[in-house]
Structure formats: structure tokens, C-alpha cells
């Protein structure tokens, strides 16, 4: 139980990274599977080489930043689809991670790690270690909250929300996209470094399927805490990670095998995505509108509920359709866009009145 809480908090760092790309930037970044291992591999091999574990962790963050930046480069400058760009980096990182570690598994058994002070004082698995980890991840959370409300952070939020608009306001969306991907993977690599030190080894396959864990955390957190504002959304991502670990813990308790955990995770994500569609847990997420924009337009929220999430999501789904038609002759598409816009604006007008 304490172990699950600790792990949940450590993985919270990764959930925050996934939140940055998936929710804020609206970019499904699969680099995560690779950059997580990169973080673990970098930290582990540096620690074995005698580097201070804190420095090694910082270096791991740097490696993650670079990994995310590469995905960003492929996507923005190379024009490669976001999913594919992430997959390409992730696959490429597999070899790089093996190079970093030199072999598929690096044990850290007799090395000093960032957890050594806790471990030596028998504090791991107690409220002390949980409080320490909670404090640490909350610092990360507040850093993200703060960053997203700066001028630059607002531009990043707008980038995920309405790219055409923010470009017309003078933001180089290529740069903000790359920056966000880099930051996100920095968080993921930090998480990888911590996990490697916590479990006492770095393994080439430690990142496999991790993006789903991140998604599960973000979605679960959102189901429980909503996404009214940044504060709640990032808190949701962080605590969603804890909830996820508790569910896994209970699933193992219930007699499931560790090998079943990937399937459990996948089912968890599927459930969290499908339940809202069946009228349950109504206030979740734009993940649905991503896959099915048409249906997300349907629910008309009463106007006297300004905090309603569904209301806020309705225009989000429709907004980028007309925005992405550069290079197309002005006449016909503009006309069509006008018609859909008229339709949706009429809908929102009636909502307002």
C-alpha cells in the first residue's frame, strides 16, 4: 500500500509531463515510452560511473529535454504527423538507450541513489517518504501551474487550443510546440531516473507501454478532479497517477498477475474514455472530442452553469476545422467554413440567450 503510494507519486512526474503534451498542447506524444527509459538509463549509468545521484538525475532531465525536442523538430520542421514523429523518436531511442547502458539491464544495488538517505534510515514505505515525495511532486505541479500562466505559458496553452489564432498574434508555434515537447519529456525522463533509482535498476524495457500509464493517470485524475482550471487539472494528473497505482495494487491483490497489468491498464483507459459517452462521469475530457468531434457537439449545456466542462469543450472541437486550410483557394472552402461557423455560432447564441 505505501509502496503503491510512493510509486504513484513518483510516476506523478511523468503524468504531469503527459498532461503538458496531451491536454495542454493537444499533442499525443508517444516519445514518452523512449524518453522514460532514457532518463533511467542516463541516471543509472552516470551513478555507476560515480557521479552524484542528484547530478545524474539532472543529466537525465537534460536527455529527456533533447528527446522531446527531437520529436518537436520532426513534427514542426519536418512536417511529420505528431503520432508518427513520437513513434520515430521512441524507436530510435531504444538503440540509444542500449548504447547509454551498454547492456539491457543495469543494477544499482550497492550504489548511492537519491533514495539512499531514506532507505538507510528505514524511512522508505513510511509516511515520511510519502510526505517527502508528495512535497517534491507538488513543487513540480506548482512549477507547471506557474509556467502556464506566464505570457509564454499562455501562448503554449493557446497553441494547443487555437493555433491559427496564436500565430496571428505573433507566436512562432513551431518553437512553442518544440519547447512544450521538450519540457514534457524532461519531466518524463526525471520520472524514469527516479524510478530506476527507486527500484534499484534500469532496464531497457522499463518504458514499454508507459504512455498508457500516463494517459490513464491524466484521464482518471480528470474524472475525479475535473479540469476547471490549470490548478485542478494538474492536480488531477498528479493524483490520478496515485489512483492508478492504487487500482493496480488492488488488481494484484485480487489475484491478477503482474503480466496482466498492461491489459488492466489498457482496459482502464478504454473504460475511462467510454464511460463518459454513456452518460456517466459527464465532465471528462476532450480526449473524446478528439476521436469523435461530431458527437461532442451534441450536449447543450444550460447557460447558468459557467463552469460546465462540456460547454467549454464544445467550441474546442470545432475550432481548428476552418483554421487549417492554407493553400486552398479562397472561394469554396471559405464558404463551407462559413456555413459550419454559422451553424455553431447559432447554436452557441441560443445557448447564451
Amino acid at each position: 500500500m505505501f509502496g503503491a503510494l510512493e510509486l504513484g507519486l513518483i510516476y506523478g512526474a511523468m503524468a504531469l509531463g503527459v498532461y503538458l503534451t496531451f491536454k495542454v498542447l493537444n499533442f499525443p506524444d508517444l516519445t514518452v515510452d523512449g524518453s522514460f527509459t532514457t532518463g533511467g538509463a542516463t541516471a543509472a549509468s552516470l551513478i555507476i560511473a560515480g557521479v552524484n545521484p542528484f547530478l545524474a538525475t539532472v543529466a537525465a532531465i537534460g536527455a529527456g529535454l533533447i528527446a522531446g525536442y527531437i520529436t518537436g523538430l520532426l513534427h514542426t520542421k519536418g512536417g511529420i504527423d505528431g503520432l508518427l514523429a513520437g513513434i520515430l523518436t521512441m524507436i530510435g531511442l531504444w538503440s540509444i538507450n542500449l548504447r547509454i547502458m551498454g547492456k539491457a539491464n543495469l543494477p544499482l544495488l550497492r550504489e548511492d541513489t537519491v533514495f539512499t538517505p531514506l532507505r538507510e534510515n528505514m524511512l522508505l514505505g513510511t509516511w515520511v517518504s510519502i510526505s517527502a515525495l508528495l512535497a517534491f511532486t507538488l513543487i513540480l505541479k506548482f512549477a507547471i501551474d506557474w509556467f502556464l500562466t506566464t505570457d509564454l505559458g499562455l501562448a503554449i496553452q493557446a497553441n494547443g487550443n487555437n493555433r491559427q489564432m496564436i500565430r496571428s498574434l505573433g507566436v512562432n508555434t513551431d518553437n512553442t510546440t518544440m519547447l512544450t515537447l521538450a519540457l514534457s519529456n524532461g519531466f518524463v525522463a526525471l520520472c524514469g531516473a527516479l524510478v530506476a533509482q527507486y527500484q534499484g535498476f534500469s532496464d531497457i524495457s522499463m518504458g514499454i507501454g508507459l504512455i498508457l500509464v500516463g494517459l490513464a493517470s491524466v484521464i482518471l485524475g480528470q474524472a475525479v478532479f475535473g479540469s476547471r482550471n490549470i490548478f485542478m487539472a494538474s492536480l488531477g494528473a498528479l493524483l490520478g497517477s496515485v489512483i492508478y497505482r492504487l487500482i493496480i495494487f488492488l488488481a494484484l491483490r485480487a489475484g491478477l498477475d503482474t503480466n496482466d497489468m498492461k491489459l488492466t491498464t489498457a482496459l482502464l483507459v478504454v473504460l475511462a474514455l467510454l464511460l463518459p459517452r454513456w452518460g456517466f462521469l459527464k465532465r471528462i475530457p476532450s480526449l473524446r472530442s478528439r476521436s469523435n468531434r461530431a458527437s461532442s457537439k451534441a450536449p447543450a449545456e444550460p447557460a447558468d452553469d459557467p463552469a460546465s466542462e462540456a460547454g467549454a469543450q464544445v467550441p474546442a472541437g470545432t475550432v481548428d476545422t476552418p483554421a487549417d486550410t492554407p493553400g486552398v483557394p479562397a472561394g469554396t472552402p471559405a464558404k463551407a467554413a462559413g456555413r459550419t461557423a454559422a451553424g455553431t455560432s447559432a447554436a452557441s447564441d441560443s445557448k447564451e440567450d
Partner: protein
Amino acid sequence: MLKIDTISKTFFPGTVNERKALQTVSLELDESDFVTVIGSNGAGKSTLLNTVSGRLPVDSGSITIDGAEVSRMPEYKRAKYLGRVFQDPMAGTAPDLTIEQNLSLALKRGKSRGLGRGTTSARRALFRDELATLELGLENRLKTKVGLLSGGQRQALSLLMAGFTQPRILLLDEHTAALDPQRAALVTNLTQKIVSNDGLTTLMVTHNMEQAIALGNRLIMMHEGEIIYQASAEEKKALTVKTLLGEFSKLKGATLGDRALLN
């Protein structure tokens, strides 16, 4: 202020779908000029605006704003000269951000964005004053997400966002076309107000002849990628929809086939 010099733009060159959207178009706007652009579908109105804004590159010709050559400048860099309002009311604002956050984004148009707070109390006071001029009560809803506003409100907000930082050029791309008549009239009035208050140099594309005549001090008519008629400030005062339609058929021996043009 804005000088468009013999620009051309062809879509899908060398294919069967080749379409000359702009054919050596030249146009000059002086300080505080408000030029309305009309024309039927496919006349090149929006293409003209999109080449000025940088969304579309030109094939040839030059565009200078305030003496600076911008035709090779990427869209996001040109933003420091330009305020823009799009046809789609959803396009000019970020729905998941609040009104004050959207205004903060607009406030930093064309400037570098750092790690300063996005919404300070000083900015909030400014936003309240600006929003009050819209007379929509938005000044009391600074923390409302823009996605919860109606289309008309969002378009009014977009207009404010484009105008309140005093851009060198204001580009309006059929910004009332997607609104119902009542809200279109509201946004038209606001346009008049914002442009005349700050003396903004404005280029406005519209489908609506009456609006084109009512607003601005100059008018141009486009057809098949060319400017076929220009009304100077003097001529424009005497213009009616009828004389405009007469001009068009006289010049092209065709009738404006567009339903929207006739209302």
C-alpha cells in the same frame, strides 16, 4: 502605410486546376484609410488579405508595411504590424482560456513573451476599460472561458483583441458573415467605433454591399483576381448598391451571381 505592388498568386500552377487568384494586384493605403473590398466568390478578396497577413506566400510582387518589405516574412513575424479578425467567430479566440487570458495574449502581439505573469492587476484594469467599450457586459466576466460566449460576443472580443493594441494595419476578413443579422449589425457598429477611435488603417473584405458602402472611406471591387473598380473617398459617398451593381455589369458584362451580394 500599406503598399501592395503588383502581387500575383496562382493556386495549383501547371495543373488542370490552375487558378489565378491574384493577377498583378496593386493597392496603396494611406494612414487611417479604411478600404472595403467586395467581389463575388473566388474574386481573390480573401487571397488578397491572406497574402498581406502572410498566411499565403505571394508568387511575385512586393508588400510593404510602413516602408518595411514583408512579403518574405513569415506570418508570425508580420503579426507585429497586423491585427486580424477572421470570418469564423471561433477562429480569433482561444476557447479554453478566459477572456482576460485571451486579451493578455493579444496585448503581447508581436512582442517577445517571457515568464512574466500573464494577467496582472494593471492589465486587468486595462482590459476592463477596453471591454466596457463593447457594452456587452464582458468587463464583469474576465474569468469566464471564451468558449462559453456566443458567436457574436466572441467576434466582438476578437475585434477588440485585434484593435486595442493599435496595429499598423487592421485586416477584417468577412468578420460579420457568419453572424445572424442582429449580431452582424452589432459587430459592424463596433468595427466603425474601434476603427474611427484609433484611426486604424483598415482593409476589410465583405460579401455585403451595403456594409461595404456604409463602412470606410474607400471601396474596391475585385473580380477574377483583379481590382476592377475603385471608388475614392469622394466617389464612395455617393455610392449605392444599384450603382455598384451597374458598375460591375458595365465593366464585366456579367451580373454578380452571388446571392450574398444582393442582400
